[in-house]
């Protein structure tokens, strides 16, 4: 039995900022939702079901906030689901929403993911001490920095690769009116001159902490076909593995490799680097660009940094990566994955505005979470899938 073809027909996001003091959580979500609905030419009343995604509830201090938000989100009288898969949640949530349509259960589904990080402090929420255990953790940066060091050791990458990524993504963000950071004049040199926070990760190589939301309208075949420029879903994959295990590869995790292989197969893609026109990859720390290029199969193991260094991941390169500015420029954690998925959809719909890649037909949206252990990804295309 095959899936019902489904497509993204509406994408909306907030203006991401360090503190969105002008809105409540409901207001933040509705800003993204209303934009997505307008884009889809639809009203909230036409939506069959709502899927909410968000990272840990400790960020906002509300347990299952979708319950209190149900009314403001227009979910009353509808099915409401809440997904939480750590940092990958924005992607997983979009995939769950897609499955509501692909299963044939619903025809019009709205999904929204958000984080209002300014309500608390992410470093605190991620580092609540565990009794008996050494409190050496220092937030996400402290967690990932040793693995970045391992990547550098394994690949022999020159030390400025991370800075190339940061300068590129921050420059791309200047073309995205919704991006949190609009840091003019970010260069490789300026990134290298920024403070070393979690050696080997520098300040300018880290993502910001943002308030923001992203929403998508996903519709079934017939509805999508009637829409102006649907982004057809060609493949969706989720894979998980443990945070720690004996001899687990933390640099190039198997779950990511397996997910990518399954995704390319589903989407009928044999040479990802030749067939993907734009990629939105979850890069919260700059070095993860080359790491994920390898993990996703865009480059051989140990060779990802060469694509970055050669400028192939710039907007004008062979594989434009994070034309939106990516997670390095906006990071409302729960929404960050959905932003990747949504930006991929914008690219193949030709609706990405100033950061549009000319003629993009197939794009990748990617998210990961936990200790590089939860992966969610999709491929969207301008053409209705044939398989």
């Amino acid at each position: 039995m095959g899936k019902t073809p489904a497509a993204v027909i509406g994408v909306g996001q907030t203006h991401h900022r360090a503190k969105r003091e002008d809105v409540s959580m409901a207001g933040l979500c509705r800003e993204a939702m209303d934009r997505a609905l307008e884009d889809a030419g639809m009203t909230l009343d036409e939506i069959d079901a709502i899927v909410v995604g968000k990272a840990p509830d400790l960020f906002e201090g509300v347990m299952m906030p979708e319950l209190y938000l149900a009314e403001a989100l227009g979910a009353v009288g509808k099915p409401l689901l809440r997904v939480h898969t750590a940092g990958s949640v924005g992607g997983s949530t979009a995939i769950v929403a897609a499955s509501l349509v692909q299963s044939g259960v619903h025809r019009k589904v709205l999904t929204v993911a958000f984080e209002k990080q300014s309500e608390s402090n992410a470093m605190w929420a991620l580092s609540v001490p565990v009794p008996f255990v050494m409190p050496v953790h220092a937030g996400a940066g402290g967690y990932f920095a040793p693995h970045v060091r391992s990547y550098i050791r394994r690949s022999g990458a020159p030390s400025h690769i991370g800075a190339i990524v940061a300068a590129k993504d921050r420059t791309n963000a200047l073309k995205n009116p919704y991006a949190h950071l609009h840091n003019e004049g970010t260069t490789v040199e300026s990134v290298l001159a920024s403070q070393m926070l979690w050696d080997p990760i520098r300040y300018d190589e880290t993502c910001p902490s943002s308030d923001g939301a992203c929403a998508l309208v996903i519709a079934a075949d017939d509805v999508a076909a009637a829409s102006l420029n649907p982004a057809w879903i060609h493949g969706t994959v989720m894979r998980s593995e443990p945070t720690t295990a004996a001899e687990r590869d933390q640099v190039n995790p198997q779950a990511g490799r397996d997910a990518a292989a399954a995704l390319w197969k589903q989407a009928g893609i044999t040479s990802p680097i030749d067939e993907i026109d734009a990629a939105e990859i979850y890069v919260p720390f700059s070095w993860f660009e080359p790491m994920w290029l390898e993990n996703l199969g865009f480059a051989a193991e140990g060779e990802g940094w060469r694509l970055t260094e050669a400028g192939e991941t710039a907007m004008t390169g062979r594989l434009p990566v994070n034309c939106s500015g990516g997670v390095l420029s906006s990071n409302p954690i729960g929404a960050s994955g959905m932003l990747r998925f949504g930006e991929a959809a914008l690219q193949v719909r030709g609706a990405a505005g100033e950061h549009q890649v000319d003629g993009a037909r197939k794009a990748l949206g990617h998210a990961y979470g936990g200790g590089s252990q939860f992966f969610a990804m999709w491929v969207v295309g301008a053409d209705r899938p044939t398989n």
Partner: protein
Amino acid sequence: MRDVAVVGFAQRQMQDYDGSPTCAELLVPIFGECYEQTGWTKKDIGFWCSGSSDYLAGRSFSFVSAIDAIGVLPPVNESHVEMDAAWALYEAWLKIQTGEVDTALVFGFGKASAGVLRRTLSLQLDPYTLTPLWPDTVSIAALQARLGIDGGAWDEAAMAEVVNRSLTDAEKNEYAVRAGGSSVKELLARPMFADPLRKHDAAPVTDGAAAIVLAAGDRAREVRERPAWITGLSHFTDGLHLGTRDLTRAESASRAAAAVGGLDGVEIAELHAPFSHQELILRHDLGLADDARINPSGGPLAGNPMFTGGAIRIGEAARRIWDGTADKVLGHATSGPALQQNLVCVMETVSEGMGI
């Protein structure tokens, strides 16, 4: 739609679980029972989905190490909802419906005793105008109970009858953390805790975990002679706002029952009513027949592990199909304050009637 059945179910319920908040130690033997029931190994499972809560555990990403209990290298196709595992079952059922997988194992876990449950649940309320008052979950249920009593929809005796039946039935449930029937008169003589609720009107604080195995078509038939075929699965939400919602009703439950074509012919219903009066609301609003047997397991008043209690209702109901006790059953799950969100899962011996 594809024919999908519940073919495996294992659970643990206890008052004070002396183990880790992720309950990995509980999940290992629970998965073991699922493998034993199905004759499968983890390689036979196409999709995994769990339900749990960070606030119950008191830390971010509390579900992350729970997947170790699966053994997740090589990696698995897996997801998580911050909801009762009944909704994880819904996500898994969707995944099977897409045709991507044929089997799924759904699980939930929670250690409610790690904190002060009725206080922790205040964090589910409106964070601006309610949570700062810390209205505990028992108080909210009590406000709901009184509305029904004042309005003549039920009375304290009817609530006590629910309790008496539940605790009597619970004597036969090895997992019950509260059991022992008495009489309506004796129950009504006990002191009030949150007037008009007595302690026995509320589900006991329970730790636990549970798992359910789903399978499509022939994969289900290979496991059981009488798979519990899911012939209706639906869920809806109401708003949280306690003032604008009619608290004596569970509109989303009615809507879910209607969406599966009504619940005519349901012989046994396992209802996830954490408070005695909520069973009365559900029986009415789900439209269950008067002779439908309610909660033969003892139900939530005998044990209600958070984020698992709903899934356990589905598992308990499915068992009645497997063992031939009934041909049509209902598993119901709720989430949120005062029956805000409701899910119905109708299971039958025959796989027709999905009607979508």
